[in-house]
């Protein structure tokens, strides 16, 4: 019996020829990513108490993104702790205010297929878009990883999600994920490995694949995986990663999947998730006409270069409706610069968009920019839990960058296909 992609990566990291779902193994970590919120300010006191340093600084990447921009003393202090930690622990891979961790990590060439990686953030499954096994952990567990270079896990089953057919114009990977949240529920992933496959997935550009892996978190999966192919390798090589040509990071054809779901991308309509859960997704037609105060293009899930391009394709030559605030927080500085050079950013700004920092911003709900009382927003982010992005009375709808842009133009939730 063959092994799944997840099993192969975990077996290698555990130093074993074979592993099977349910076994508990200890793995050596190839890469640990930390950010300013759950990173240095929380792990440093623990490492100090254990009287150890980082096990291997070359395997650690530190990115500041949650308390960016630092607008008060507490945030400035959190940033200062991150900087001094990077210096004291000799972490050369330190990206200070360069964008959101899940986007910066592959953009700077730190991921490779077959890696076993952990991140101090729940959307760490994003790394799985590159064929790496990557999952999120809390700060104490991360401190344990930084101290020892190891972590335990229960070998997951693999839930295979097949997308056949071809996405229509104005429909994106975000719509695929919102549909999955509604169909499978927010615990449908059962903390197992969620693997995406099929023609519609293979046709996606890299950053669209990242949205699928990213939102494996919303399905409750431990990891989200996509087998690497030439699109993966081209992206990573362009980012400066040293990617080998071997094709070994694929699951075996006779490996056992615990569940196999098939969905048709051709029939997929744009989806919108009503407050306060991504699982409240339904076709956009069930919400068209709902007035919005804010349209937010942001987050690792919804403001990468590809996301900005989608929004711009709707906004070109148009303006946000009167009374609607259009906000855009490009997911990384580098993506923002490319968007600026190619004119994408300008289209969004011409439409009335207000540019925010390349950071988590309103998505995290940690900073000064938050949704006020009774505000209705449509957002390209991953989560619309009650009170997450602002007041408990704010109502956040989730949609694709296309749908957010179309809704900004109409001043109410709108089907983007009429605008493409």
């Amino acid at each position, binding site marked *: 019996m063959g092994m799944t992609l997840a099993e192969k990566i975990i077996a290698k990291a555990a130093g074993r020829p074979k592993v099977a779902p349910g076994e*508990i193994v200890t793995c050596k970590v190839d890469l640990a990513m930390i950010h300013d*919120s*759950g990173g240095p300010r*929380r792990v440093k006191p*623990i490492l100090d*108490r*254990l*009287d*150890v340093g980082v096990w291997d600084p070359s395997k650690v990447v530190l990115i500041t993104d949650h*308390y960016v921009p630092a607008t*008060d003393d*507490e*945030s400035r202090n*959190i940033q200062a702790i991150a900087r001094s930690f990077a210096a004291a622990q000799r972490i050369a891979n330190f990206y200070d205010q360069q964008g959101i961790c899940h986007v910066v990590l592959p953009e700077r060439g730190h991921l490779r297929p077959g890696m076993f990686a952990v991140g*101090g*953030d*729940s959307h*760490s499954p994003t790394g799985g878009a590159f064929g790496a096994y990557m999952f*999120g*952990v*809390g*700060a*104490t*567990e991360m*401190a*344990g990883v930084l*101290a*020892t270079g190891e972590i*335990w896990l229960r070998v997951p089953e693999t839930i295979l999600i097949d997308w056949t057919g071809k996405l229509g114009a104005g429909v994106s990977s975000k719509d695929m994920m919102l549909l999955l949240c509604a169909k499978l529920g*927010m*615990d449908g992933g*059962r*903390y197992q490995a969620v693997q995406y496959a099929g023609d519609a997935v293979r046709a996606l550009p890299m950053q669209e694949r990242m949205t699928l892996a990213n939102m494996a978190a919303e399905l*409750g999966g*431990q990891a989200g995986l996509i087998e690497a192919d030439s699109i993966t390798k081209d992206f990573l090589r362009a980012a400066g990663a040293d990617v080998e040509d071997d094709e070994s990071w694929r699951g075996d054809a006779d490996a056992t999947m615990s569940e196999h779901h098939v969905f048709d991308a051709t029939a997929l309509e744009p989806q919108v998730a009503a407050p306060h*859960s991504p*699982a409240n997704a339904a076709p956009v037609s069930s919400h068209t006409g709902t007035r919005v105060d804010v349209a937010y293009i942001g987050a690792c899930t919804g403001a990468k270069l590809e996301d900005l391009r989608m929004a711009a394709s709707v906004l070109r030559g148009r303006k946000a409706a009167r009374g609607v605030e259009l906000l855009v927080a490009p997911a990384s500085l580098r993506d923002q610069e490319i968007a600026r050079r190619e004119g994408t950013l300008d289209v969004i700004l011409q439409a009335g968009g207000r540019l925010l920092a390349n950071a988590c911003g309103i998505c*995290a*709900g*940690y900073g000064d920019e*938050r949704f006020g009382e009774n505000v209705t927003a449509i957002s390209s982010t991953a*989560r619309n*839990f*009650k*009170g*997450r992005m602002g007041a*408990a009375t704010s109502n956040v709808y989730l949609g694709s960058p296309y749908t957010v842009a179309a809704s900004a133009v109409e001043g109410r939730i709108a089907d983007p296909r009429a605008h493409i």
Partner: protein
Amino acid sequence: MSGRAFVFGDNIDTDVLAPGKYMKAPVEELARHCMEAIAPDFAQTVRAGDVVVAGRNFGMGSSREQAAQALKILGVSAVVAKSFGGIFLRNALNLGLPVMVCPTTEQIRQDDRVAVDLVGGRVINETTATTLAGEPLPGFLLDMLADGGLVPHLEKRLAAKRETSG
């Protein structure tokens, strides 16, 4: 030891347990706002030894371990749920907060007196005089809990290692 049950539904998320607005504040302060968005009285009324009882996917969402830490600070002695968000479950154990999966938590009512038997893998409802079967944790996690969580556990391990190599 038994405590009073505080009963919640499915999909209680980490933003409800540890609201983003208070994430900069010391965790003791954040704990006073735990569950505020759905149960404004919870943090004021819960007492040391009380037990949080929930449905499916408790602690889903972010990796912020303050979600588990807040419950611990408030004195919650254990969380029993039909299932947990995977990161929350790990965080809770790492912080020394006992958690147990129990598929029939709907049989526990608000304010019932319950005792959680981690080693035996069961919940004893003293109010109704019934026992519900749960899933016992693997031994190495019980050991870590007994040490008080991951940090004291690692402290012990590292000390032992230093001794043998020293």
